[in-house]
């Protein structure tokens, strides 16, 4: 999506079109911190200004911790600062690993390897070159050099100070700024080009640890010198990456700079403002992409010779369908989380409609201008809620066969936050090795035979009964009533509650207390990118009790979490994390 040079772009095209995406808008955003634009001379950097941090970075009392930006956060940070016309090439850094069910927690343990550094440097060069492109420089850099062939420290200094604030999510200290200006100066002299100097300095910022990682500074909690909390700028970043999946905007940085963000009233104001921003959609999407394991689509294989309707388009649309459904239910319609499991409302493309076997308006089938259209499944349709969507069904199957075990495991682990033990070694699969055995035509028959083995029974009792209810959907997510000619029995149970088929399973999942508890816990862990402490777990339990009566609504959940002071504390001894899931 390239709609101009707006800083504050949002995800959906419809919302995007409503925003001011002009160059003027970008300039207005930068003007939100007027002092930064005032400093056009080197002298300005040395004088005290509003942009000085509340607690100076580098104070001996502070300590640092690092969280690597995700590829998506990197891309958005660049687009937010320089506009969406700046093209960010595909970022191939390691996706990391899951910890406590979330990539967000694993990310806290990541560093940057050699091959990844090579990519970041290439990206930095490419982005910086685009920023000083003759078509953009006047608008993005904001000052004209004295000569195209020479360094211009004043112009460069003003620009680097301005963008440094957004890139590092804190003001750039004077001594730091001098280094970047010196880089510009040296490079411009060596290459006889002002632009080359600017590319060097900007790319240096873009490969600096302060940009590639979210650097968290901590400070003692007032009145409790033994306890640590995030400083104001780090608090702004935590809020912003949690709610928006991107770097703080000017207003949030200004609240950090003034110290208001450290007050309950100032925090409240910012949280209210942020939750009304269209950028909330980004945060919601990023969270559910992580929680539902949609990174798995990068390597998902479904055999298209066996499932010809599972086309490349279906693969590309699958997670987007679920994310659109979630955005519509939780943000647009402000419904509670449980509704995701029982809603009939969704969005379809022609490819998905073909797989689901439902008609779309003719204009869509012929290729409408917008491929997505709202669709509501009839009340008696087996499709209900996000569990019946192709994203969940295909992601948790084998390439050529459905799997009640994988689907049940995903339900337990992703949506109920439970742990299913790995299969033991030395498993004897001889009873069910032949999928064409006339005695075991359906997955239920094969697994029932398999689970009669004592060593296997324990885990399969946990996973399979939930997964059986989804057996009316094959690997590709298409509906079926029989497997190998044998009618499918879609009965199952969860926590002693029996059900039959998708509709009843959906209701049971919606009503299970563990469903909302899981969301609340995951959201909190996702925001702090660590496991909750004992005190935090107690608070989360009480929050669930409190919110549970009316159902958990997204904005309210975000508000409660971000207004809780513990959300910004820094545990002195980080809790140990459990094993990462493979």
């Amino acid at each position, binding site marked *: 999506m390239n709609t101009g040079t707006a800083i504050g772009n949002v995800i959906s095209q419809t919302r995007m079109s409503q925003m001011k995406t002009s160059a003027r808008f970008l300039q207005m955003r930068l003007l939100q911190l007027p002092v930064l634009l005032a400093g056009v001379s080197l002298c300005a950097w040395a004088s005290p200004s509003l942009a000085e941090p509340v607690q100076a970075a580098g104070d001996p009392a502070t300590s640092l911790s690092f969280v690597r930006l995700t590829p998506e956060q990197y891309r958005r940070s660049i687009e937010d600062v320089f506009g969406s016309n700046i093209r960010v090439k595909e970022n191939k850094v390691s996706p990391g690993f899951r910890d406590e069910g979330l990539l967000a927690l694993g990310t806290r343990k990541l560093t940057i390897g050699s091959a990844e550094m090579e990519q970041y440097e290439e990206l930095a060069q490419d982005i910086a070159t685009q920023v000083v492109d003759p078509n953009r420089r006047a608008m993005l850099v904001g000052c004209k050099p004295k000569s195209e062939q020479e360094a211009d420290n004043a112009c460069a200094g003003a620009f680097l100070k301005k963008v440094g604030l957004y890139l590092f999510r804190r003001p750039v200290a004077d001594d730091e700024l001098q280094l970047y200006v010196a880089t510009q100066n040296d490079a411009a002299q060596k290459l006889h080009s002002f632009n080359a100097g600017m590319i*060097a300095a900007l790319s240096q910022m873009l490969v600096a640890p302060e940009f590639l990682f979210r650097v968290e500074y901590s400070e003692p909690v007032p009145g409790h010198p033994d306890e640590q909390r995030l400083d104001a700028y780090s608090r702004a970043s935590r809020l912003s990456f949690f709610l928006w999946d991107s770097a703080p905007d000017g207003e949030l940085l200004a609240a950090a700079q003034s110290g208001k963000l450290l007050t309950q009233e100032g925090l409240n104001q910012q949280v209210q403002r942020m939750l009304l921003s269209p950028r909330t959609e980004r945060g919601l999407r990023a969270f559910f992409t992580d929680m539902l394991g949609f990174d798995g689509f*990068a390597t998902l294989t479904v055999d298209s010779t066996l499932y010809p309707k599972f086309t490349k388009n279906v693969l590309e649309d699958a997670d987007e369908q679920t994310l659109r459904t979630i955005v519509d239910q939780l943000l647009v319609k402000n419904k509670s989380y449980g509704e995701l499991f029982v809603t009939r409302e969704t969005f379809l493309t022609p490819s998905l409609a073909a797989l689901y076997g439902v008609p779309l308006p003719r204009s869509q089938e012929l290729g409408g201008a917008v491929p997505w259209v709202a669709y509501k499944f009839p009340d008696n349709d087996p499709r209900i809620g996000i569990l019946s969507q192709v994203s969940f069904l295909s992601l948790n199957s084998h390439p050529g066969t459905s799997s009640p075990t994988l689907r049940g495991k995903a339900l337990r682990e992703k949506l109920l936050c439970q742990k299913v033990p790995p299969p033991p070694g030395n498993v004897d699969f001889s009873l069910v090795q032949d999928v064409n055995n006339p005695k075991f035509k359906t997955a239920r028959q094969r697994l029932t035979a398999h689970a009669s083995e004592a060593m296997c029974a324990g885990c399969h009792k946990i996973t399979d009964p939930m997964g059986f209810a989804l057996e009316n959907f094959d690997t590709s997510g298409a509906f079926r009533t029989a497997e190998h000619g044998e009618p499918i029995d879609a009965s199952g149970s969860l926590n002693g509650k029996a059900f039959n088929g998708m509709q009843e399973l959906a209701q049971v999942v919606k009503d299970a207390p563990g469903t909302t508890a899981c969301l609340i816990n995951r959201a909190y862990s996702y925001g702090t990118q660590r496991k909750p402490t004992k005190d935090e777990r107690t608070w989360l339990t009480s929050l669930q009790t409190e919110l549970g009566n009316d159902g958990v609504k997204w904005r309210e959940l975000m508000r409660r979490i971000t207004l809780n002071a513990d959300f910004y504390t820094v545990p002195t001894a980080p809790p140990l994390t459990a094993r990462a899931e493979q």
Partner: protein
Amino acid sequence: MSAHEKLSRRQVLRGVLGGAAVSVALPMLECFLDPNGTAYAATGASLPPIFGTWFWGLGLIPDHWEPKTTGDKYELPEHIAVLAPIKAKLNLYSGMQVFLDGKVNQNHFSGAQCQMTGMVSRTGSEYTTSLDSILGNHIGKRTRFRSIEVSCDGDRKSTWSARGANGMNPSEVSPLALYARLFGADFKDPNSADFTPDPAIMVRRSVLTGVAEQRKALMMKVSATDRTRLDEYFSSVRDLEQQLSVELERPSPVPSCSVPPKIESEDIGTLVDQTRNTHRQFAQLIAHALACGQTQVFNMAMGSSFSPLRKPGEATAYHQLTHEERIDPQLGYQPKCRWLAEQQMAFFLEMVQTLDSIREGDATLLDRSVVFAYTDHGEARLHSMKRYPVFTAGSGGGRMKTGFHLAAEGDAATRVGLTIQQALGISTGSWGTETNRATKPFSELLV
């Protein structure tokens, strides 16, 4: 090269080690090269050794791949008969195992982890410096790329290479992208008559030097838990500085270096034909990069250890097949699994032959390489940690004898990693932790 020089290295390794790590630095490049083919005829400069890893998932069919005899007169069993053309340059190791020492078997993880790092961790989130990094630090410091990692199944997470404790090196999955990285605009042909250091690259290097200079200030403030990660970040910055420094130096002419034909298309996927094609493209690119001195270390993975490899039209992928396919009572094995395992052995043959096809004087690129081929389970069907099939190909420039089958019943599989380290000049007497600590290399292979 004098006899004295040759002997001194072996004497050092045999006489000084005594089972403990020693810190005797052994010169690599001048003293131990085979006079037949590991030096340039034109300049007399030595060709450095190469280390590569080649991972395939789900092992081989037990009882069907182990030769009946050991030594250099063994016969290749039918299951791996495809390797016959490279038998003379191959070593085959049987009978070894990975010890769990009471830890949970992280299926499809612990076995490969141990062979690459020497340890088995308690959880799947712990990993540490891998064999390729250890060797890369020793033999590959002056190349443009520290190492090259690729995976042939489209999954970047398919890698067993890591430096430090915080993150594995992701694999490149696109041959098109690898071509651009290796032979794109920044490639300097070592045989080109023209060479002028590019001032733009000098500037890029200065940019990184400026970043690296922040290290001290940041390291003073960082919390203890994050210090290692930050240090690894700065190591990566230094690696890139080094890479750019190499690009600023006039490269030595390399007669065997040629730029491979440009890759026009790719078809990344998990069907056997797709994986074969991707592997073939990667093999060509890596071989040319090695021949042109762009790197001395590579890591190839056929794909995830939960192998998604699949025969066209077959509903079930390889990993699932290992657990669900019936053992044919007449044949005594899982026929589809065997077929897929043999396909992978054919891929291995192709990789080794690709290296062997590039001539360097009287020898070949393979001759100065050691390629370590390993897998995740001795018997994938049962997640067995015993009887691992392991191969090495190439003599590392005459440092390892080849053509042998070595049976090491019940020994730690880390013996192979230790042997390679010693062969390539790392003066360590042991490698690995707990029961997986190997102190006994395959000394019969060491020259």
